[in-house]
């Protein structure tokens, strides 16, 4: 049972920190053996979107905002696990990964972070900000023709987040953003392993369009919030903050 908050005399400049509403939690499928979901007090917020959609900028702003509002935060993202991130990098440099291997490698990376970072942080009541989640991994698998049931079973290990935001940017805009940031296109982000086009520029456009299509399909199933990311950073962030505020007090997002 939760104690009713009593008014406390605060200093003039002290703002009251909102204690997040406890939400009902579940895994997508069989989950992780031995985890009691009822003990996961924190919130899991996911920001999805292609490279160049502004995910990391938005997450950094959210971290600043959440921490100044009195919430402890933890960040996770793809390919950041202690277990396999180096090996996965090396394998990708060699361009020798076949699709099932690629899929399982990323699933291992995800599971390692889920068990060693995300779940302990949620147990401790922290806000977990995830820079991409299983949806990017699923979309990549679907674009590569993996069996939908197989992929769904695999990611039955994942926890259902409190909110998922998809930063939507048109492929032609993504190209411009990627060039202005790195001045080159990445082999995997261009889907070159699929052999869609010999030319990396043409491949990037086709691949990102296929990814966007898969995200639209996933959106129907997993109900994430599509954010128009063509707008200024601050405008986008204000929208995200408003939605996260609602999540913290236990409102359903629509």
């Amino acid at each position, binding site marked *: 049972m939760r104690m009713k908050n009593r008014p406390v005399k605060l200093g003039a400049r002290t703002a009251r920190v909102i204690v997040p509403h406890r939400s009902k939690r579940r895994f997508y499928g069989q989950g992780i*053996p031995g985890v009691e979901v009822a003990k996961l007090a924190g919130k899991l917020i996911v920001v999805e979107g292609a490279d160049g959609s502004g995910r990391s900028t938005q997450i950094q702003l959210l971290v600043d905002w959440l921490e100044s509002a009195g919430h402890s935060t933890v960040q996770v993202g793809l390919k950041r696990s202690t*277990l396999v991130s180096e090996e996965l990098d090396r*394998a990708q440099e060699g361009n020798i*990964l076949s699709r099932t*291997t690629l899929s*399982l490698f990323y699933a*291992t990376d995800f599971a390692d972070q889920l068990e060693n970072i995300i779940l302990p942080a949620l147990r401790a009541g922290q806000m977990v900000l995830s820079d991409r989640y299983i949806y990017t991994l699923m979309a990549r698998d679907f674009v590569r023709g993996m069996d939908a049931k*197989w992929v769904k079973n695999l990611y*039955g290990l994942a926890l259902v987040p409190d909110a998922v935001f998809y930063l939507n940017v048109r492929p032609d805009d993504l190209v411009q953003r990627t060039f202005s940031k790195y001045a080159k296109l990445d082999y995997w982000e261009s889907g070159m392993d699929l052999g869609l086009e010999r030319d990396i520029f043409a491949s990037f456009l086709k691949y990102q369009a296929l990814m966007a299509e898969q995200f639209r399909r996933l959106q129907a199933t997993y109900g994430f919030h599509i954010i128009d990311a063509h707008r200024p950073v601050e405008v986008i962030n204000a929208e995200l903050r408003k939605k996260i505020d609602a999540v913290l007090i236990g409102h359903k997002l629509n």
Partner: protein
Amino acid sequence: MKTFAQQGFPGRLIAVEGLDGSGKSTQIYLLKRWLEAQKLKVFFSEWNSSELVKSATSKGKKQELLTPTTFCLIHATDFADRYERQLVPLLRAGYLVLCDRYVFTAYARDIVRGCAPQWVRDIYSFAALPDLTLFFKADLEVSLNRILDGRPELKYFEAGMDLRLSPDPYESFKIFQGRILEQYLAMSDEFKFIMIDANQPIEEQQNIVRALAAEKIDLATFAAAN
């Protein structure tokens, strides 16, 4: 699930399964030598041996980073890499592929570790079944003694220490192996394991293994081109 023959592959896959210390690796090695002596197209693949994945697995084991879920997934990644890049192309090219352990090892170990059985099976559902699966069944005590006599230092995951069965590695190993054996036996009919009595002398077992390979597979059709 179908075998490689049922899926129309020109190659054939023979797998050996059994507990650590059952002598299966010795037997498949001797089978390989015999097939090679006949100048057949043979390829051997071992569990947990993908060049891409192996270093992650050994790091995970050494630093005790693995949970039942990541233990399952990292071995599945290793298997997928060997399956897609080696086994399938070789089987398409008409090779005899010999596997020291196959998906059944994962079914048994991961389930003992507490992973959901259907989840594990579905993960490996991309793999076809072997055309011949030999299960080496030694008395639990015999297997344990072979391991414990030779290598008194038991590794953490090998002994199933992550399952907290016993604080004593030897005791833990025994309980763990016993549970794996139960899992193997429970699936032996479903996957048509051919049981081989691994308490017999090496040569006796090899006679049986060769006879089975020759009976189940038309070996002459796997001759290497000169």
